[in-house]
């Protein structure tokens, strides 16, 4: 198992490294001199000279890349042109919000998705199945900001039960934090639940048709027990993969939700940085998001290996 995990970690580290190359290249696609691009047009000549020296802008591109990598490894993601503060600080300030939102939405997506999928699978090919499919499909078809706007209108304006935006950290005031997060987390979670529901339905269906279940039923085990103990556990593993992907990808979906609900998270930081051409922030955010993806993937892999005996055996 450790060999499997090590190889996975290594391959993900490789992926992360490739991401740094992508981030490096993407920024250099911008028209103009890199120092002007990174520092902004009213930078002092001294600042420009320092920048050029630090990144070796007159040296070959490989050297520039290594210099930049050197900065990153030391945790220096550069300084935001617009905010005038280190990118790392800006991102760290906003990370708790994005993480709380993402995890909350993830919980909703999983609960909703798995429930819908199971229900659809158990009553497959009946009207229940069709309704669930439509509900899931709707989630995949709706623009997230549209859903967000509608939710705000319904629950914050028409029936003012929830706040329309803003954020309170959970450790400061859990009740208030919850109220601020309900709508955005639901908007984000519902949309992602479609894929999970689909996967859950498919694998649950397969499990229900499988040998374990037939044997259990023939032994006279109660229906509920059959479903929960035998079918569900077997259905879980493929669902785990999809769930992992969802969590990793959810960060992206959070971008739009943060904009609609005025949550000062990493997503909004990125969008603002793009419009303002604040390249250091754009670059830094890309790396952080990719790092998140890698971390989640490693976690999923660990869970995967731990839970599926077949994988464990194959790996050892």
């Amino acid at each position, binding site marked *: 198992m450790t060999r499997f995990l090590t190889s996975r970690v290594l391959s993900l580290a490789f992926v992360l490294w490739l991401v740094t190359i992508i981030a490096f290249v993407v920024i250099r696609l911008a028209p103009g001199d890199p120092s002007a691009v990174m520092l902004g*047009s009213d930078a002092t000549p001294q600042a420009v000279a320092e920048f050029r020296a630090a990144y070796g802008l007159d040296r070959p591109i490989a050297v520039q890349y290594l210099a930049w990598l050197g900065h990153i490894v030391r945790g220096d993601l550069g300084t935001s042109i617009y905010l005038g503060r280190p990118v790392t600080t800006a991102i760290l300030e906003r990370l708790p919000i994005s993480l709380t939102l993402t995890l909350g939405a993830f919980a909703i997506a999983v609960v909703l998705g798995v429930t819908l999928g199971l229900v659809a699978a158990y009553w497959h090919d009946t009207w229940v199945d069709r309704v669930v499919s439509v509900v899931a499909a709707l989630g995949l078809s709706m623009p997230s900001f549209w859903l967000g706007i509608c939710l705000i209108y319904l629950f914050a*304006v028409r029936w*003012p039960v929830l706040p*329309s935006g803003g954020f309170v950290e959970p450790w400061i005031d859990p009740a208030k934090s919850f109220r601020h997060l309900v709508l955005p987390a639901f908007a984000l979670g519902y949309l992602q639940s479609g894929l999970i529901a689909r996967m859950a339905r498919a694998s649950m269906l397969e499990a229900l048709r499988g040998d374990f279940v037939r044997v259990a039923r023939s032994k006279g085990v109660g229906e509920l027990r059959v479903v929960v103990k035998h079918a569900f556990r077997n259905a879980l593993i493929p669902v785990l993969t999809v769930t992992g992907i969802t969590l990793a990808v959810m960060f992206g979906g959070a971008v739009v939700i943060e904009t609609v*609900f005025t949550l000062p998270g990493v997503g909004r930081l990125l969008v603002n940085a793009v419009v303002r051409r604040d390249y250091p922030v754009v670059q830094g955010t890309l790396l952080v998001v990719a790092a998140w993806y890698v971390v989640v993937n490693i976690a999923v892999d660990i869970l995967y290996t731990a839970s599926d005996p077949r994988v464990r055996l194959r790996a050892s």
Partner: protein
Amino acid sequence: MLRRLMTLLLPVVMLAASSTAAAAAMDKCPAQGGTVRAAMAGSPPTLDFITSFAAQARDMGVYIYEGLVTVDSNYDAVPQLAERWTTSADGKTYTFHLRKGVKFHDGSPMTAADVVASVERFRGQSPRKADLSMVASAQAVDDLTVEIALAQPSAAFVPLLAYPGPAVAIMPKKLIDGVAAGKLPQSSVIGTGPYRLAEWVPDKHVHLERFAQYSPASAEASGYAGRRLACVDHIYFVPVPEVSSRVAGLESGDYDYAQNLPAETYKRLTATKGLKTVILKPYYEIVMHLNTQGGPLKEWKLRRAIQVGLNEEEIMLAAAGDKALYRLDPSLFFKEQYWHSMVGANRYNERDAAKAKALVKEGGYDGSPIRIITSTDFQFMYNAALAAESQLRQLGFATKVQAYDYPTMIDIFRKKRADWDISYNAFSIRTDPGGFTFVLKSDSGYQPYASKEVDTLLEKALLERDRKARLKLYEQVQDNLYKDIPMIKHGDLFGFDALRDRLDGFAPFYTTPRFWNVRSKDKR
């Protein structure tokens, strides 16, 4: 980029002004405590307020900082940190006597040395430094006396000193000495105002906290001046760039105040229980700057085509959203001011599309797109740009619109001339027509326009002591602007903000909400 003009005491204005002043006057707080949460149209780009033209910086700076002088409800310059001032006979030396016992937020006393350091820093680092170009030197005579010497006498000096955007804020010498522009750390944001900066989390909020040792001035509160009492303990300025979120947040009670609301919601919000709507008048005049130095609009005939062809009624209606929230007016100055003039007005709102199209041909327009930059922070600016763009296309121009947040747009306007042909802007009222010197004079580099004639007129006007003569000079400036067409004014816009009833004692003034002398009716 919002500039102010000086208002004169007209009866109508007096009435509005006195009600404004009365509503805001207070001897002491009837109740102490509570929090105000204000939803603002954007974020201040920096806490080094003197280095920014952004309205958002001014909105918050006025709570933290004070100046030697400031503006009252008539936009006249009145004392603030200076108790009084005297002028020498030749008009070249001003002696300001400071109030006693004024403390900075860190507890240290405000002295003349701090004033001198602040004025010098402003003259060195502020983009508005040209407004004080007549100043030769500033020195501390003793702890409470500052002497400012002018190179030449100028009627505009004190009003321009009082101008709040950005204000000549008085800061502690020890914290600002040697600090470059924009490099002021949060911990150094220390002033003498009724509120101190508790915390700034970019894009989240600016949190102000009542300054317990504040020394209010003795005069009745008026405008930004007089007795400002911090009855509310905490103020949160929350940037909510989403207009719909500002409205929704106000309606649901998340915010107590919402700035810059769309006209379409006016009727509904006015009728809503628990809410109060306020009209801010005068507010901004909406203008478009034309790039006279480069690009297709370098050609005068094409600028004239635009001037002749635009239908300002349409643009202002799109910008304001409601007929009650704007008025057409050709002057650089607001109707409420002495300096208002109709000179050159024959070239305002001519609406002659045929003539415009002919000029486009004559001007040899090559079809390159006219690049228009505008701001999303201010709905009126965005709307005006789109309305104008549609008209420009009708006149035969190719166009390209790009919208940014306001501080970024200003940055591009001022520093990236090659990237725009038309840039939107809004001017707020000036405490003195001299406040336009910076905007129009070629050596300030504010806009691409450069005219020796206008430069001379502006210089003369700063030095001229006779009011009537000054008026004539500014009228000539206005005439030149209509002839050279470096900018085109669309009209006057009125502002529309709204607040919850729980804020008692609020009265609108200028463009930024005043939460001093305001109490919250419930203890929240």
